[in-house]
């Protein structure tokens, strides 16, 4: 096992290195000053406190949706409803903040909890469709994400819209917003909630009875069924919980210092990003902060690079794509892995013989 795990780490690192090399190649092709661009890409996030905290603030939504997707994917519920759940979560917290006028301190808590519940209800839709009609959750979740988007836009335009600015709600009242933790940055207490969610997600999946049921079902549904586990329950719980966490992430994100109004008129892509996070974290929520840091660092670096050089931001898409491709490619480095294992096995044989002799 140890050699397998070592190998997985190695494989991820090599995949990242290859992806970086390919993107360097692209930068060399398109840029007049490639070294400058590469240097901003790699070290930009470290060059100022502000840049670095940009990385931290963009980790937060990724950890939420990443953890949610880890839970859903562990139960083999491969779906994208976390995208819509995040969106709906943002809408609900905006509605609570603008319409309920609760006192400061209470308002954000209520808003976030309700947005989490809304997220759970949302991801329950593909689950129920699957249970009742065997509709494939991947397809149905993709479709209902548009429902989330246009429903939110509708609510915003008819009930929340600030005529002074157009396509956005009235500003979120101060009583509901999350404070900044560090002056001149936008890092907010959501980071602590996110880290707690990642740890709790891990405990849930790996230490609890229901988490065990989820993972058994995810790895072999027929076996789980034969063992007496209720598949319906597993599908529902994994989807409700995944949506709860993604919705909470959406609620927190909207109340954070990053936004001052609900202005999400297109999907933000955190549900898709969550799949990258989940793949890098090998479906273990404990590793989502690390994966989120990697992705956030890369993106922040790329946006800094785009500002200070002639290379555009989209280069980051290439890096992301290549990394994921290599990580999911089962055969990548398999020859090396085989050699490593053969060497170990031969050594073990020799040891055994010496013991006998």
């Amino acid at each position: 096992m140890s050699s397998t795990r070592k190998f997985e780490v190695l494989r991820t690192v090599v995949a990242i290195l290859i992806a970086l090399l390919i993107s360097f190649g692209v930068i060399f092709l398109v840029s007049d000053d490639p070294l400058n661009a590469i240097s901003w890409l790699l070290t930009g996030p470290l060059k100022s406190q502000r840049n670095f905290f940009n990385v931290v603030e963009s980790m937060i939504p990724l950890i939420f949706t990443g953890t949610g997707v880890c839970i859903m994917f562990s139960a083999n519920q491969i779906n994208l409803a976390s995208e819509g759940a995040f969106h709906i979560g943002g809408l609900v917290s905006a509605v609570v903040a603008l319409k309920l006028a609760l006192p400061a301190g209470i308002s954000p808590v209520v808003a976030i909890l309700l947005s989490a519940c809304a997220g759970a209800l949302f991801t329950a839709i593909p689950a129920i469709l699957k249970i009742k009609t065997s509709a494939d959750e991947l397809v149905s979740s993709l479709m209902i994400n548009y429902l989330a988007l246009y429903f939110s836009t509708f609510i915003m335009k008819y009930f929340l819209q600030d005529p002074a600015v157009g396509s956005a709600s009235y500003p979120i009242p101060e009583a509901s917003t999350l404070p900044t933790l560090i002056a001149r940055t936008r890092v907010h207490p959501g980071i602590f909630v996110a880290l707690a969610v990642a740890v709790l997600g891990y405990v849930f999946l790996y230490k609890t009875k229901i988490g065990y049921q989820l993972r058994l079902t995810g790895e072999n549904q027929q076996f789980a069924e034969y063992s007496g586990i209720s598949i319906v329950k597993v599908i529902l719980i994994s989807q409700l919980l995944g949506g709860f966490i993604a919705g909470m992430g959406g609620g927190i994100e909207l109340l954070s210092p990053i936004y001052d109004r609900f202005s999400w008129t297109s999907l933000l892509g955190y549900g898709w990003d969550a799949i990258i996070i989940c793949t890098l974290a090998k479906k273990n929520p404990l590793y989502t902060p690390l994966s989120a840091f990697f992705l956030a660092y890369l993106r922040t670096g790329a946006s800094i690079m785009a500002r200070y050089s002639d290379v555009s931001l989209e280069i980051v898409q290439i890096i992301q794509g290549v990394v994921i491709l290599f990580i999911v490619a089962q055969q990548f480095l398999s020859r090396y892995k085989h050699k490593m294992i053969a060497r170990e096995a031969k050594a073990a044989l020799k040891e055994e013989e010496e013991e006998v002799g």
Partner: protein
Amino acid sequence: MEKQAVLQMLNIMKIYSNGVVANEDVTLELQKGEIHALLGENGAGKSTLMKVLFGIETPDQGKIILNGREVTIKSPQDAISKGIGMVHQHFMLVPSLTVAENIILGVEPKKGLFIDFNKAVAEAEAISKTYNFDIDVTAKVEEIPVGIKQKVEILKALYRGADILILDEPTAVLTPQETSELFVQLKKLRENGHTIIFISHKLDEIKEICDRATIMRNGRSMGTYSVSEISTDDMSRLMVGREVALTFEKSPQHLTDVVMRVRDLTVHNSQGILKVDNLSFDLKGGEILGIAGVEGNGQTELIDTLNGINKKYRGTIEIKGSDARPLSIKGIRDLKLAHIPEDRMASGCAGTLSILENMFSNQYDQPEYSGRVLLKRKVLSRRCDELIREYRVKCKSSRQQVGMLSGGNIQKVIVAREFSNQPDIIIANQPTRGIDVGATEFIRRRLLEFRDAGCAIILVSADLNEIFALSDRLAVMYKGKFAGLFTDVSSVTEEELGRYMLGLKHAEKLEGAIYE
């Protein structure tokens, strides 16, 4: 006098990507025109050695010498072009095509761009005649019995010009009658100068048909012997490394109450075909009810209905006095029913999870193993180590992935899980299929121990030795019914049983299924 060697595999070593050393240093030599047995427990490395020979696996060490020349075999196509053919344990035929079409598949006679079907039929018929295989080559494969399917597989290999024919446990799926017919064919092939590798763990069959035998144990060759000069006891000792008793002393029966009462059970499969036909029987504590039969005669459907997987049935099933219909699978399992499923990888375990995670899928929620929410990881881990020792699962640790173990060891994990839950009823479906003699003996002994302790057991098995050795009552399933039921198992011969299995004979009036 030393005959001419057609094939030598010298010092073959093969290590799998999961670290299992399947072949350590194996040498196999074939003489022209012999039937050579490759004998060994499961996990001994027979299949791996043959995969190396057939180009499916690349060896990490060693060389292959074919007709005096060293060769590397890169792929099955390569092996076929060198005159090596293989008949797999699980048939590789296309059910919707005819026999002739299956035989020519991949090497079709062409007329322009199109397949010349008339020529295909003619060629298939010709080759079938050459080797005295009496087969209707225009029949669809899905409509022919298992024994014929196997002949088609052999013809397929011969059609591609195989001189060396590898047969991987060819008799595992055959009735006694079909087996003896196969043996006649194999002897004819030998006369024609073909060399046959016969993989098996059935010693009596090897005695009957093979000339020499290479015995493997633990990835090593234990030597090659002339079959006429070695006793079955010696073979089995070389194979297992110790004396194995495959006959059991059964203690007298102590029957207790009826724990399962099945009445007028009728089940259709998902295609609407009648699979269990109006079946009624009782099961008492302290007995083993053996169910024999050719595969596909409703055994699978019967078992899946008894354990609650299938809820679409007519009739009644009562388990310990309660109607099973409203009960979930969990509810039935809570009545202390254990189930060893037929297909261990599909429904017996999760190959990607660890031994530990596979060991408690049926009992993790018991108070000793978990609280209201959390699992008691330490207790589970300790208990798992105990079970690994008790059931002699060969592994590195309880954290090892189940999928990396050999078949026999995977089965031991499953059996350990099912037996450790103090069952009152055990449904064992092919509990020792494809696993080694040591593990087989262990599992059978355990089943007898449970029987003696008052457990009620249903045993479905294609292995007639197993059925005979363990059953207190023996039923033969044919087309969804019990064609026969024997309360005195010792009075039945294997041939007799074979006739019931093939539907040549059936009891006019079934007695002994129901306790009055």
